[in-house]
């Protein structure tokens, strides 16, 4: 039975040699029942610690964790009916693949015949039937990870936790296993929490993404929202490849209201959010995918440094006139080469505006609303 996971003001501190390190800081959120949630963030942001607290391998310093109505904050990992797949895979080297997958059932006292049936079913789903009588050391990395997934699968857990299970695999296997994991999620009645530092995995696999920044919640939302409506510059820059371009600008008072003025562009801004920000410096964020040589009302000039071809697209790494790093992703860059000057444009609708603390002031839609409200522009 899948259960929702609720974290309530969870903190985790580590004390080493007199210093206190806060790994997870005041984290509150509810992971919906049966959903696939990915915890993502850079190294050391507390994502694995959060997962280990959900698993029961770490106890929060303060705050509570609930599975459904049950308070599991102090419950031993043995009694949570969770399953976990580890980054190091953690297969028992002295047991065959079959014994490895069935170990949880054996501990639970399931009779051998039932165990074997469950293992066979899992092996079939994961295409490892041929490997059942081998030892883990004889398997390739991808097969080992399938076995680890199989062990989790046969246990029918309420909560399935995966700790960077693919970080040691090559790109092709990752793509294969990504599909496998999603299929397992469909077949299993479990709330899945998946930790990764790879935002592609996070964006492609999950219903919800939890982005952490130094132990604090940066944003918890469906992947599309993270991409289109980031709550801060940190979120905008972390999600999406290449990273969101950030262009320095200031808010100035024009005849028809506040205007965001950058080195080469002027964007009319909504009165309600910018009226009291006249004179403030802000940052305009624009995704490389929304910059185009041919289109866009607001144009910036970019000195090209490097052009990479990615199949049908080109990625241009360049520098704007005032020295900011600017990336452009487009299908055609008109044969631009290093040191060429490229003029690219964007629509106000695709931009984000951040204040000097990196918090989002408004997204593109609000900027467009401002324009339509002032037809004189």
């Amino acid at each position, binding site marked *: 039975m899948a259960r929702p996971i609720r974290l309530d003001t969870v903190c985790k501190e580590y004390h080493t040699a007199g210093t206190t390190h806060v790994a997870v800081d005041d984290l509150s959120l509810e992971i919906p029942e049966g959903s696939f949630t990915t915890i993502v963030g850079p190294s050391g942001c507390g994502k694995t610690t959060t997962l280990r607290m959900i*698993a029961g391998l770490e106890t929060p310093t303060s705050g509570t964790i609930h599975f459904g109505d049950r308070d599991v904050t102090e419950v031993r*990992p*043995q009694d949570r009916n969770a*399953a*976990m797949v580890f980054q190091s895979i953690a297969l*028992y*080297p002295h047991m065959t693949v079959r014994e490895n997958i069935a170990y949880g059932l054996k*501990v*639970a006292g399931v009779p051998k015949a039932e165990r074997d049936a469950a293992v066979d079913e899992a092996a079939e789903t994961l295409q490892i039937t041929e490997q059942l009588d081998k030892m883990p050391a004889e398997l390739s990395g991808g097969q080992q990870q399938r076995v680890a997934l199989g062990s989790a699968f046969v246990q029918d857990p309420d909560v399935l936790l995966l700790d960077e299970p693919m970080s040691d695999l090559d790109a092709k296997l990752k793509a294969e296993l990504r599909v496998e994991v999603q299929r397992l999620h469909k077949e299993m009645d479990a709330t899945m929490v998946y930790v990764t530092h790879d935002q592609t995995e996070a964006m492609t696999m999950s219903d919800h993404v939890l982005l952490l920044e130094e132990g604090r919640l940066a944003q918890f939302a469906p992947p599309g929202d993270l991409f289109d409506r980031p709550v801060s510059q940190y979120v905008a820059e972390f999600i999406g490849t290449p990273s969101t371009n950030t262009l320095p600008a200031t808010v100035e008072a024009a005849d028809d209201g506040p205007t965001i003025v950058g080195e080469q562009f002027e964007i009319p801004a909504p009165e309600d959010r910018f009226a009291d920000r006249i004179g403030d410096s802000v940052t305009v964020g624009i995704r490389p995918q929304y910059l185009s040589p041919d289109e866009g009302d607001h144009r910036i000039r970019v000195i090209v440094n490097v052009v990479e071809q990615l199949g049908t697209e080109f990625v241009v790494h360049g520098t704007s006139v005032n020295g900011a790093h600017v990336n452009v992703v487009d299908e055609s860059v008109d044969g631009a080469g290093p040191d060429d000057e490229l003029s690219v444009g964007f629509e106000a609708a695709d931009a984000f505006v951040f204040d000097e603390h990196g918090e989002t002031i408004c997204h593109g839609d609000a900027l467009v609303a401002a324009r339509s409200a002032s037809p004189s522009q």
Partner: protein
Amino acid sequence: MLGLGKGPAGKYVSQRTQERVRRVSVILTALLVAIFVSIPVYVMIAIAFQPATTTFRGGTVNLLFDSFTFENFVLLFTDTGTPRYLFNSLIVTASSTLLATALSVAAGYGLTRFEFRGKTMAARAVLFAYMFSPIVLAIPLYVIFFTLGLLDSYFALTLALTGISAPFGIWLMWQYFQTVPIALEESAWIRGASRTRTLWEVVLPVARPGTIATAIFSFSVAWNDFTMARVVMSQDEMYPITVGASLFLDRVTIGWSETMAAAVLMSLPPFAIALFLQNYLLQGFNVGGLE
């Protein structure tokens, strides 16, 4: 200046020659060690399996086999306390090996997996204890066992021998458990296995090479011990074979041939163990950083 150490590998001496030199020196060293070790063993065997009259014929020691006999062994078993000595050795060695291994596994696991006050101190104390020569411990132990009235007992000798072998065993297991990934245990806990069950079904099987190396070490300490047995035991029927055999020569009827036969008997168990368990031994000590 020759500028040695500069330039690409093989600049001064070709890599092929280097490889050849390396191999020849390894073989030479091995040969030298083998000769040093096998000559005494050969002498022991030659004397043990020939009648004393043949060995010492003509006033010299005749080490080339020209006759073969078990008479020295027969004499050992009929005329001396050898069976009793062997039995004593067996009892004391078995119990000390068991105790030292159990202690090492428990302490090594604790040192690896638990944080407690004074952990580093404890670990250092263990290693420090290993530095003592047995004879340094012998007198204080004698006093302790005398006070407790435990002299001349298997129990006392077992404790004394464990005291010598356990520090190294603990240190070895401590190193070994550090190579067992904690994720193996955590994955078992999450699957519902208790800490104890995990220890038996996951940790110990994975740590088997280390455990066997520890057991072999404690075995060899106990089996080969002379000092502690000499101090703790004072009655002839409590002597282990090491002490017992050393006293043969005091008797008129027992000569070198019988003594060497006893030496052969003493060598058999370690030899068998080395033969059958050498893989485990190497794996275990490798992790301990010894090769």
